[in-house]
């Protein structure tokens, strides 16, 4: 069964700042619908009064990563799209994956070493090896 990796979404904005207008509209119109469509994500709305840092949408995932996205001067629809994108992500870092595969046991028959295809007389060492 699918377990959503997004734990909580924190909407930090100021009720008076001009660039938080999209955030305020999102809270008024679309936040309830978003919360209903994603029942396993907790949505926190925390307005801080007075001039402060820029409005931000903080996403916390099950593996502990915290991802902050600026929502200054964004419309309500854009914030909805951003929130759905964050909800569909997992918390893994967004870097280039070097290889799309990984094994803990790469070798079943034993990894090659310079003595694999040599006659086994070469692996015996010590005083027992005497010409009979």
């Amino acid at each position: 069964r699918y377990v959503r990796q997004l734990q909580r979404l924190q909407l930090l904005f100021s009720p008076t700042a001009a660039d938080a207008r999209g955030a305020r509209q999102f809270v008024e119109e679309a936040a309830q619908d978003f919360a209903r469509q994603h029942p396993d994500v907790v949505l926190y709305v925390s307005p801080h009064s007075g001039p402060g840092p820029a409005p931000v949408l903080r996403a916390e995932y099950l593996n502990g990563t915290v991802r902050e996205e600026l929502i200054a001067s964004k419309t309500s629809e854009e914030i909805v799209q951003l929130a759905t994108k964050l909800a569909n992500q997992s918390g893994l870092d967004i870097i280039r994956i070097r290889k799309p595969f990984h094994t803990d046991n790469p070798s079943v028959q034993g990894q090659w070493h310079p003595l694999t295809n040599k006659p086994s007389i070469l692996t015996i060492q010590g005083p027992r090896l005497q010409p009979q």
Partner: protein
Amino acid sequence: MVVLSAARWVRSRLTDRFWRVQEVLKYARHFRGRKNRCYKLAVRSVRRAFVRSTKARREKKRFLRALWITRIEAASLEHGLKYPAFISNLVKSQVELNRKVLADLAIYEPKTFKSLAALAQRRRQEGFLAALGDGKEPEGIFSRIVHHH
């Protein structure tokens, strides 16, 4: 070093220009000389580094293929076969393994690779018999072709 809270009169001010410069310098941190510190030199070096990395993606494919071929050649010489003979006889026996997989088998699965080398050797002998024997002997077993329709 990041100053965010109410002490706005502190002399160290992080302007937007600082962040714009850091965006470029973060890609130059592992360079040698002044180009990992000075923005004017770093801009040119970072741009050249990006251009080279884009172009090198095509070279990487050629380089890796050459590496696999070297490894398969070394492994097949251990079993007494040369690389062109090995590859051509595998293809004739309808074993469609690419060089990447063959190189990985040669490293991690040496017994499988030995059996593949033996198969190629057997197909080579049957090819010689078919070419030199001319007719009377029966066709080789490993020279039969399976048709998938």
